[in-house]
């Protein structure tokens, strides 16, 4: 089954609210060998004017993963995880994520394009806070390989 082009523009429900925890932010930062005190030290983050530790730039991938699971779970998607390659990634911020934020992500498949030997799927996760304000948009480009004939 090829990738279903009708996924573009399909409405998906927002993911369940995700509460950004201070220790999760620190764990993520340590996994990236970060020495940035804004990620690690609540006192330093507060001194800089943030409510709590600031999440690393690539942290929204955690929320985007939930939306990609939604995409893979669509029975007619035609996307098989074992043939998916992560080709590009981008984050566009309105404001940084800080511990204590309660975030939801909404999936939007913005493009599906066939190319030699695969299909390029562009999917966005629009991430908002509890007040409904935009925080960050994560954009993934996946290349889905053809199944063996």
């Amino acid at each position, binding site marked *: 089954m090829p990738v279903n082009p009708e996924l573009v523009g399909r409405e998906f429900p927002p993911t369940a609210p995700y509460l950004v925890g201070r220790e999760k932010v620190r764990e993520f930062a340590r*996994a990236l*060998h970060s*020495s940035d005190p*804004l990620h690690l030290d609540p006192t330093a983050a507060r001194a800089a004017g943030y409510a709590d530790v600031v999440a690393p730039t690539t942290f929204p*991938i955690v929320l985007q993963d939930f939306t990609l699971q939604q995409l893979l779970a669509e029975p007619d998607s035609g996307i098989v995880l074992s043939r998916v390659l992560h080709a590009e990634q981008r984050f566009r911020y309105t404001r940084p994520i800080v511990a204590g934020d309660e975030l939801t992500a909404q999936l939007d498949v913005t493009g599906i394009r066939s190319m030699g030997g695969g299909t390029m799927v562009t999917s966005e996760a629009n991430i908002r806070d509890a007040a409904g304000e935009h925080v960050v948009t994560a*954009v993934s480009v996946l290349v889905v390989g053809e199944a063996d004939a």
Partner: protein
Amino acid sequence: MSAAATPALAALQLGEVIAQRTLELSRETLVRYAGASGDFNPIHYRDDVAAQMGLPGVLAHGMLTMGLAVETVSAWLDPELRITEYGTRFTRPVVVDPAHGATVEIVAKVGAVDPEAGTARIDLTVSCEGKTVLGKAQVQVGARARRSHG
């Protein structure tokens, strides 16, 4: 305060290396990132699965490499600036040997400065064994708006 008045931005010189670091990745690095991110794809810790998929070995998560790279900039960034956008292409996988790991080199240079707009672009070069692994890895920074949640 106007964005253009941010001294941290005005001080940036085009082409200047603002940060760099060399990191040794091991299998433990990958397992730690898997746990922190929730990405448990076995190609990032199981040799048998990687081989079955036709890969040259266990690979670092692309998002790990992308994250390590930008943290080099994040730790250097003046508190008056913040990252507004970051994007890259994953052009070459980083193979992490079970015994010897992999060495990743990150160099961050000033790619553009726009004092009028109060923005700058930092270009990242990320390489492993002398070959670049990320394509067009670019970080946009801007003056930080002081708000209740930063």
